């Protein structure tokens, strides 16, 4: 076994099966139990690209990976210590992500001639030596499940559906977990006879593992050291939804979420649509453009207008975002990035929309850009976006990506009372002499006077505004002045941002990241530090504008490395803004960095100059 200790610090388990096999459910149940046992954890589902690929084929394989640990971890792990494969296709498509010597539990009932055919296999991997590098257990999961549920009179199809619980029972035993949480959940979720059948399958799997010769492979991971407080698991999409909802309850304004369904952002809409009693209004528009336009209309009328999308949708929204820049209205645009260009690989992750976000509009049209870096900071990021949008009367783009959106990890639930206040630009009181573009001196925000306010009737729009009055103006000096004022407004925003402090060494190599590369970079940095390297990690939330001291921090290091899932977009911004010789560590495979791979690549960048 790759990790011979009976009490390892961390374990990575992967569940894989057909889309219909209930692997996501098994994974999420295992996650709940693991969280309640006090481990730190991170999870990532791996959905098939097609909604209903034919059963048993490679395209239909659905996976779920969890890493859990007795110390703090930052990613769902690279290669798995253990794999549960429910059929031949699930085994072959996942075998490369298992550690040599790892544990492989296969449902041996699903390796018949037809199953092998569907999985495009000419020989049977159970017999052809494919498993020789692993500790394999061939378990007839389907037939044992059928036997276990026999007393409850289910037809074959329904009986087969219980097999994910049988598999889960095995995994529970392997990691010394109690069945309680899942038993309680089954009792709540199902009715007779499915309730009894699922319970029986779960217990049968557990009992089977106990009697099979698995004892030497049992591993117990101790509880991690968490700060006290209440925790829950959170996905990136749910965190964004909750952050927006908090903005609604704390601002006293409705949050209007106008959107058009798009992978991988739709779950934000699904969550928000259920929070109507919190002052969240959701609008599924006819297209991406209407979605952002309706959100801007909502902001004009006094709500916090928000739209959510992915890269292709952001491209469509560009013109409207420019209007929000010109009209100086609050707007939140969430971009859950995916692999592009064009339709690209919608279910795969990438960070290649940064420059689109920064510059993908006509004219000089600066927006604030902030980025989430892991599921458990998305709540804060969404809330901050609302705060900035309203305080500075500006569009704020929030960047997330598919990896953050669907990944989950424990989240320390914040105290609602400790959330910073959402401040509005000062409201004018006297209609006499009211000027729609007269700015607050500190923030340069213009007043947010909404239709329905007597005496303040005025017009706004996309034509260049005359300073103060907001009347249409083609005056050359005015245009330059207004362009610079819109830029200056973001500088005011910058001066109020917190300073950044790198993690790790104060000299040597600085690894700068943004977005979902956080976990991999932090893990690698910890490892490099423990290996004695002078290295530090800085992860940026504020990308436009940058934190006020970023340039000074970059200047302290001999080398600046920027790992990103694109061809060097943050690298370009850093080089341009600070004239530093930042080097990009690029990956563009629709997959996150593996920590082993990143470790190697950073070492090779460092070796060129580092003196040890």
């Amino acid at each position, binding site marked *: 076994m790759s990790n011979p200790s009976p009490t390892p610090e961390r374990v990575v388990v992967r569940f894989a099966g057909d889309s219909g096999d209930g692997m996501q459910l098994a994974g999420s149940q295992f996650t709940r139990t693991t969280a309640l046992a006090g481990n730190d954890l991170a999870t990532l589902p791996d959905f098939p690209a097609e909604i209903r690929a034919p059963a048993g084929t490679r395209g239909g394989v659905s996976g779920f990976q969890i890493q859990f640990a007795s110390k703090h971890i930052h990613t769902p792990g690279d290669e798995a210590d253990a794999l549960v494969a429910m059929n031949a296709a699930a085994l072959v498509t996942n075998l490369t992500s298992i550690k040599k010597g790892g544990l492989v539990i296969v449902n041996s009932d699903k390796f018949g001639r037809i199953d092998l055919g569907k999985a495009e296999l000419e020989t049977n991997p159970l017999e052809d030596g494919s498993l020789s590098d692993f500790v394999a257990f061939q378990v007839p999961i389907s037939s044992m499940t059928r036997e276990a549920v026999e007393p409850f009179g289910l037809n074959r199809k329904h009986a087969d559906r219980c097999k994910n619980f049988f598999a889960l029972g095995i995994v529970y035993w392997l990691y010394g977990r109690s069945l309680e949480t899942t038993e309680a959940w089954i009792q709540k979720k199902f009715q007779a006879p499915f309730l009894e059948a699922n319970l029986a399958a779960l217990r049968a799997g557990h009992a089977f593992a106990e009697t099979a010769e698995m004892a030497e492979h049992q591993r117990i991971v101790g509880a991690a050291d968490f700060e006290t407080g209440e925790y829950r698991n959170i996905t990136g999409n749910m965190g964004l939804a*909750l952050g927006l909802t908090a903005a609604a309850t704390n601002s006293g304004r409705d949050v209007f979420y106008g959107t058009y369904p798009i992978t991988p952002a739709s779950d934000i809409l699904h969550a928000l649509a259920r929070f109507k009693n919190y002052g969240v209004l959701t609008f599924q528009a006819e297209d991406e453009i209407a979605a952002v336009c*309706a959100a801007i209309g909502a902001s004009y009328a006094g709500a916090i207008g928000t739209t959510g999308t992915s890269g292709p949708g952001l491209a469509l929204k560009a013109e409207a975002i420019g209007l929000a820049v010109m009209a100086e209205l609050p707007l939140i645009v969430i971009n859950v990035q995916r692999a592009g260009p064009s339709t690209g690989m919608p279910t795969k992750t990438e960070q290649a929309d940064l420059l689109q976000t920064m510059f993908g509009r006509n004219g000089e049209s600066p927006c604030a850009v902030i980025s989430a870096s892991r599921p458990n900071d998305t709540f804060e990021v969404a809330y901050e976006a609302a705060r900035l949008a309203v305080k500075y009367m500006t569009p704020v783009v929030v960047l997330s990506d598919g990896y953050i959106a669907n990944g989950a990890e424990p989240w320390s639930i914040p105290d609602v009372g400790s959330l910073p206040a959402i401040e509005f630009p000062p409201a004018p009181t006297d209609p006499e002499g009211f000027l729609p573009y007269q700015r607050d001196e500190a923030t340069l925000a213009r007043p947010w006077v909404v239709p329905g306010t007597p005496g303040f009737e005025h017009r706004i729009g996309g034509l260049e505004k005359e300073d103060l009055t907001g009347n249409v103006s083609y005056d050359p000096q005015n245009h330059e002045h207004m362009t610079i004022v819109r830029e200056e407004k973001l500088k005011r925003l910058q001066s109020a941002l917190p300073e950044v402090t790198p993690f790790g060494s104060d000299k040597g190599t600085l690894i700068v990241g943004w977005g979902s590369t956080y976990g991999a970079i932090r893990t690698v940095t910890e490892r490099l530090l423990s290996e004695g390297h002078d290295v530090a990690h800085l992860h940026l939330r504020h990308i436009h504008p940058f934190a006020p001291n970023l340039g000074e921090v970059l200047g302290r290091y001999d080398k600046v490395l920027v790992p990103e899932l694109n061809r060097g977009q943050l690298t370009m911004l850093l080089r341009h803004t600070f004239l530093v010789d930042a080097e990009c560590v690029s990956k563009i495979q629709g997959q996150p960095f593996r920590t082993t791979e990143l470790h190697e690549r950073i070492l090779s960048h460092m070796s060129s100059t580092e003196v040890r």
Partner: protein
Amino acid sequence: MTAPAYSKKDFMSDQLIRWCPGCGDYSILSQVQTVFSKLGIRKEKYVVVSGIGCSSRFPYYMDTYGFHTIHGRAPAFATGVKCTNPDLSVWVVTGDGDSLSIGGNHMAHVLRRNVDLNILLFNNRIYGLTKGQYSPTSEVGKVTKSTPMGSLDRPMNPVSFALGSGATCVMRSIDILAPHLRSTIEAAQEHKGATFVEIYQNCNIFNDGAFASFTDKAQRDDRLLFLEHGKPMVWGKTFRKGLQLQGLELVIVDCETAEDEAACLAHDQTSLALAHLLAGLDPDQGFPVPLGTLYKIDAPSYETQFKKQAEASVAKLGAGDLTALLHSGDTWTV
């Protein structure tokens, strides 16, 4: 709060009007300002939202809240405004290019959703602001700068488009028929739901006389059919004529007596089938141009239901308690 007594002047902004002298937009602006002063709605409750085009300059000339947005998207902005604050009287001013070409999608959807907006479509059958290219309502063979050999596309019928999109109220008027236009604009505000008003508007620079065949004083009375719900559809000064149903078609009959007129088909504004027939009447085939309310039915308006769902959610679940929400689901304490 009831509205004070306003005059038209209260709705005139201080901005210099930049339409060409003689443009039909002036008359429409004037009628809208007059009607706004008489609707009994407080001034601050009016919002005029527009897209891009000559007509879309409209909000700048109204002393109300106004939002001049981007090309074709005014219905979407207006939807956001109305759903956020259903208390506002929201008007969309658009043109044939803005709402039927670049923004056709949004127009279709705002109509089927039945958002309570008053949509004034100034149809001049040409692109004015970009200096004279043919539009989606231009007739086949239109010679313009972009179509020196004549345009090839068959034109769109705005009223048929609106009906086909599921509009609940469809009207038509003409820029120069001031009293009729005023009463149409008033009726638009009365309808709860999306009201689609096609206004034939003369662009005297790039498409002068596009509607002259039925708007010229000499012919007008013999070419225009003023629809009234429940009344026989008859028209004409020199010769009285009326419409009757023959099979699935409307046909013209001569009316010599009052009885002949009474025997003509009465307008039923709740009949979608009749509205489609009226929309399809071809003036080039001698048919009259129907004006007024072609179609009007009662249907729940979108923003009302939108707000109702939020209220129902509060009634069922209570006003949201953020702490409870954050702590919901599986939590554990360390």
